[in-house]
């Protein structure tokens, strides 16, 4: 025999080691690039949503309309092909693991705004096989390159928040009014909220925050102790979606 059993075990052991070390080096690499560094140059953008203020505006969809309009998000009349960046869903769906029978009905019976959480440890970025989705170290925004996405939808599978949409069909015929200064997407790619990075770049707040006339949404830099988001999180009790998963979502809900 050219290779005996002992040799075979060595070969198989080395194979397993090789795969495991690739994974381990990634894990360690991501733990020291955590986003919350305080060297003064990096930002950590976050959103704070006031459930009390939001629930007072029954049926208001100003933020959703504004976002979907400026980003050329298509409107499909069936649930299957749906594309959405920000939407209202029931408290039950948003926080189904934090529910109990005696919660304030006033809170439970009102919808909650859902969008991409721009996690510190985004599972979507971890699983993407082409780096088409990535986290910007300078400000924590989880971004997408729609030209690189191969449409495998692994990120959709990995996202614990249902925040990602795939273009099952050509979105363009389903855009009510195409806005010229934002790209439309093609079929076969994934898309999601980008915290309006194109507006932040110009010093403007995200479209949803700007559209909310009731002040129910705040956006800002967590690294700045004087920011509005830090102030709100200091003064009020807030919750996040599925905190136990360790994704560190950066959308906070004031209750």
């Amino acid at each position, binding site marked *: *025999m*050219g*290779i005996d*059993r002992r*040799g*075979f075990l060595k*070969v*198989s052991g080395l*194979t*397993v080691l090789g*795969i495991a070390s*690739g*994974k381990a*080096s*990634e894990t360690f690499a*991501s733990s020291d690039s955590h986003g919350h560094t305080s060297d003064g140059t990096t930002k950590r953008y976050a959103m704070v949503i006031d459930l009390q203020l939001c629930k007072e505006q029954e049926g208001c969809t100003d933020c959703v309309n504004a976002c979907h309009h400026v980003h050329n998000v298509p409107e499909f009349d069936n*649930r*299957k*092909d*749906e594309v959405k960046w920000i939407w209202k*869903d029931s408290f*039950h*769906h*948003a926080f*189904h*693991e934090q529910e109990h029978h005696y919660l304030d009905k006033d809170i439970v019976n009102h919808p909650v705004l859902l969008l991409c959480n721009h996690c510190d440890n985004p*599972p979507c970025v*971890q*699983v*993407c*096989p*082409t*780096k*088409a989705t990535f986290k910007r170290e300078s400000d924590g925004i989880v971004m997408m390159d729609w030209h*690189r*996405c*191969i*449409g*495998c*939808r*692994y990120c*959709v*599978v*990995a*996202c*614990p*928040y*249902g925040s990602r*949409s*795939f*273009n*099952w*069909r050509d979105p363009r015929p389903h855009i009510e009014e195409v806005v010229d200064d934002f790209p439309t997407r*093609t*079929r*076969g*790619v*994934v898309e999601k909220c980008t915290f309006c990075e194109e507006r932040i770049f110009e010093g403007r707040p995200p479209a949803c925050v700007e559209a909310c006339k009731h002040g129910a949404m705040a956006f800002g830099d967590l690294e700045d102790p004087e920011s509005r988001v830090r102030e709100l999180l200091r003064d009020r009790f807030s919750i996040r979606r599925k905190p136990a*998963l360790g*994704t560190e979502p950066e959308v906070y809900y004031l209750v």
Partner: protein
Amino acid sequence: MIENALTGSKRYWTWVGFLLVVIFIGFLFYLRQFHEGLGITGLSRDITWGFYIAQLTFLVGVAASAVMVVLPYYLHNYKAFGKITILGEFLAIGSVVMCVLFVVVDLGQPFRAFNLFLYPTPNSMLFWDTIVLSGYLILNALISVVTLSAERKGIAPPNWIRPVIIFSIPWAVSIHTVTAFLYAGLGARPFWMTAVLAPRFLASAFAAGPALLILLCLLLRKITKFNAGDEPIRKLSVIVTYAMIVNVFLVLMEFFTAFYSSIPEHTAHFKYMYFGLDGKANLVPWMWTSVVLSIAALALLIVPKWRRNFKLLTVACFAVFIGLWIDKGLGLIVTGFVPTVLGEVVEYAPTFPEIMITIAIYAVGALIVTVFYKVALTVRGEIIYDRIKPGAKPQSVETIGS
């Protein structure tokens, strides 16, 4: 060598022609999907992977199972498998090609598939799955071509191929392990978040793959002069028996942890699978069929008298294969999405185009296996002849030794 595939009986050509027609029809449906997008499938924002990815998962197992003939033959020098090792390797090649095709038809932007290699991303399990699958395809193609050409020339295979063959053994285990890692590391999907997923994948693979190989050997014995012999088939049936027992054991472990802990996000998926949730129960009849088939198969396999009866063994192998196909090719992937990450119960069923594309890919696999088996058996002088026409002449075997 490959020219042996171009001569054959009427039955051979009818079968090849039939497969080509099926492939062509499926290809037309794929063109439609390519044009309109994956919207023509039953997949949705909530259930984003379905039939295609489930077939990938199942067939990776069939591919990996070649190791169940390669390992005893090359590592333990179990001579009885000498005749069928090449059949296992060719089955693996056909299966891996199907796996690759199922990934490609599932991509939203198939022309960008090479981005996988242009921007290699080691933290993605899909990247590793691509590596191990393509590596396994290359290994098996190399091994079968080298060993078969040596056999054709009547000489011993070159020495350097042996380490390659030994290397292919852990590699076979890796393809199904990495495929399990696609699912098992996702915090978003508690149904797949289980350490026994990879072992379970391997156990079910080592049952379903050899079961298919037994069926193919028995079929070849019927329609060709090739006879694998009783001993290797009996040995394979023992492998199927043990693997099936381990598989059922691991599934029961899943049930215990889910229902004894009664953590809702773990039990909900099992409830959906076997009893339905919120009145939605698409999978229930399928899953119970799988349960019945698995129990029947275990009974037929465990009782030695029944296992040795080739008629009953055929029934048992069908039961194992179909039972596990339902479990992996229908249940396992879809149930990971029901309930959804938002706790909603949404259902999925493949559409007609989706099913036609799937059947066409299976036809590609069948064509590859047919053609390669034809080549291998002709090289070995086990001439395929037509039993339908009485007195049909065996085909020429002039290629042997030429």
